[in-house]
């Protein structure tokens, strides 16, 4: 179940809404669980049709110090709803005096967007965190899907990333190896997918919260991998 990528060049829709400017439909975001938590890796390119609007978009939203959300789809939709989710999570914390679980946070988000199902929202996000059950990873999208899993890739470049991730992911990876796998998967996707590129942003979610590991320009990675080969 991929997040459907809309063709930004087709004007007009089934519901009659014309979309001229599309951001973030072309993207590659991925996340996978392993023994030390969750690795989240994203690219940073935003396209409007064939125009590259930006190469430095932040596609990971820091909901709170132990929860991350990725963005794929309409940038406005993603950032708005995830900020709303951050607010809801904070309210939960204040009311119940304990942190919200990843399952509950993703459920809140799914319920919020479900009310707008069919109205043209476009969002495919992964909610990643660490709660008392251990690492948590949920995929939530504007169609109403909410799925728990160990490994997800979302966006136009997701298929390329899946190939690399599937062949490399194991539960017993070290943090270094997992980061390198995530970085490589995003790089391979940016290599083949025209709508992904820019930089690879890498985050690691562990029991103490999330840490930003690295930000690498894809061209630098290209030379690095070429020299390695």
């Amino acid at each position, binding site marked *: *179940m991929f997040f*459907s*990528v*809309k*063709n930004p060049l*087709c004007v007009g*829709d*089934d*519901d009659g809404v014309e979309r001229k400017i599309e951001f973030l439909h072309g993207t590659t975001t991925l996340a996978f669980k392993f*023994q030390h938590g969750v690795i989240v890796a994203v690219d940073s390119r935003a396209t409007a049709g064939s125009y590259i609007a930006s190469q430095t978009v932040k596609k990971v939203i820091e909901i709170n110090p132990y929860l991350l959300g990725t963005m794929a789809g309409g940038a406005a939709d993603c950032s708005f709803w995830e900020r709303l989710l951050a607010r809801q999570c904070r309210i939960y914390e204040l009311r119940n005096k304990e942190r919200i679980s990843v399952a509950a946070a993703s459920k809140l988000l799914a319920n919020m967007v479900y009310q707008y199902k*069919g109205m*043209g929202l*476009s969002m495919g996000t992964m909610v990643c965190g660490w709660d008392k059950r*251990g690492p948590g990873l949920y995929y939530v999208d504007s*169609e109403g*899907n909410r799925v728990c899993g160990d490994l997800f890739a979302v966006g*136009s470049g997701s*298929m*390329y*990333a*899946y*190939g*690399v991730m*599937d*062949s490399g992911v*194991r*539960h*017993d990876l070290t943090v270094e190896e997992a980061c390198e796998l995530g970085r*490589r*998967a995003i790089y*391979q*996707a940016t*290599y*083949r997918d025209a709508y992904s590129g820019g930089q690879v942003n890498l985050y690691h979610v562990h029991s103490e919260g999330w840490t930003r590991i690295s930000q690498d320009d894809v061209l630098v990675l290209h030379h690095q991998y*070429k020299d390695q*080969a």
Partner: protein
Amino acid sequence: MALQDICNFQSVFEDSLTTEYPAVPHGKKIASNYVSGLPFSNNKSLFHFYIPVAEYLDESPIQFGQISTVQNCSADSSEDPFLTSSTLPTCLPFASSQSVPLPFPMAHGTTTLAFMFQGGVLAAADTRSSCSGLVACPASQKILPIHSHLVGLTSGTSADCALWKRILARELRLYQLRHGRRLSTSGAAKLLSHMLHPFKGTELCVAATLCGWDGGEVDDGCDYHGGTETGPGSHGETTKNQMTEQKNFVDSTNAKVSLAKDERFSFSEQCFIRKKMNLSGPSLFYVCSDGTRLRGMLFSVGSGSPYAYSILDQGVHWGLTVDEAKSIAREAVYRATYRDAYSGNCVDMYHITSKGWTRRNREDLKEEYYREKQRRKHEKTERRDVTFSD
């Protein structure tokens, strides 16, 4: 790869001419819906061209039993009950909601890949033929040998691919008999591309990757001894490859020797060097029924191709050994079958060298899938033990 336009295409050939067609060749049913757009479809001109292929060229490809919305194809489709199509009949089948369609419809339910390296060309493909959701054949052959040194990978409608491969094989054999040498892969690709051109815009769906080893020997079957024996003039069709130096590049052993010298060059520079002196050696072309004809070092075609591409891009470089290349190809097909519903079952692998093609035994990927599943289950139980002991 770019055949999405064909899948979107409406049938152009809808006017029906009168049924004045005198002779029904070979007792075939000719429906009243007559193709008017093809060059051979004119009543009169049919009998002036004597091209044996013309008999079926004058029928609309729609009437070959392809799934289409034209009503009168149902009679013809019953003639061919075993026709399997590995394309999806309609476009945009899986948009999960109507408001967010896919950028292009996924076509050619298959995964085929081929790449060049110092040991020749390696071609691999899965073996699943699907017919919009039904696995019509779990053991089909997508890699079809054309002659001893040329192999074609097929993607698209399996009937179309099988037919055109046979036509190409016949044409290449005729060329060989007339001219005393084999046509190069580049020439074969050009020939196929020109033969498919009249069908541009129809529902014909063929995306073939031709992998071959170009030699220059006069007699069939004898080993090629080096580029020095055949001058550049005899290969008129490979005019873009100017032979600037007489380098022996054919035998795989020799290739390794020259490779050792080339190691210091980067991959892209090596390609350039190879192209400059390429009168013979491995060769890889992609030909598509929409007119594309591309030369390259690595191709993957089909719905499973993105998964395969990322594995291949990671691992393929010129200096691979044969075993490494085989294992990368197998891993790439396996990963594609793992994620893509339209690819699966077994993997076929062919290796083309100066001595011709060799085929590896068909391997069932189910075993690999269960091995991996066991491994993951094992890791999960380990993790459970670890968390309990914390």
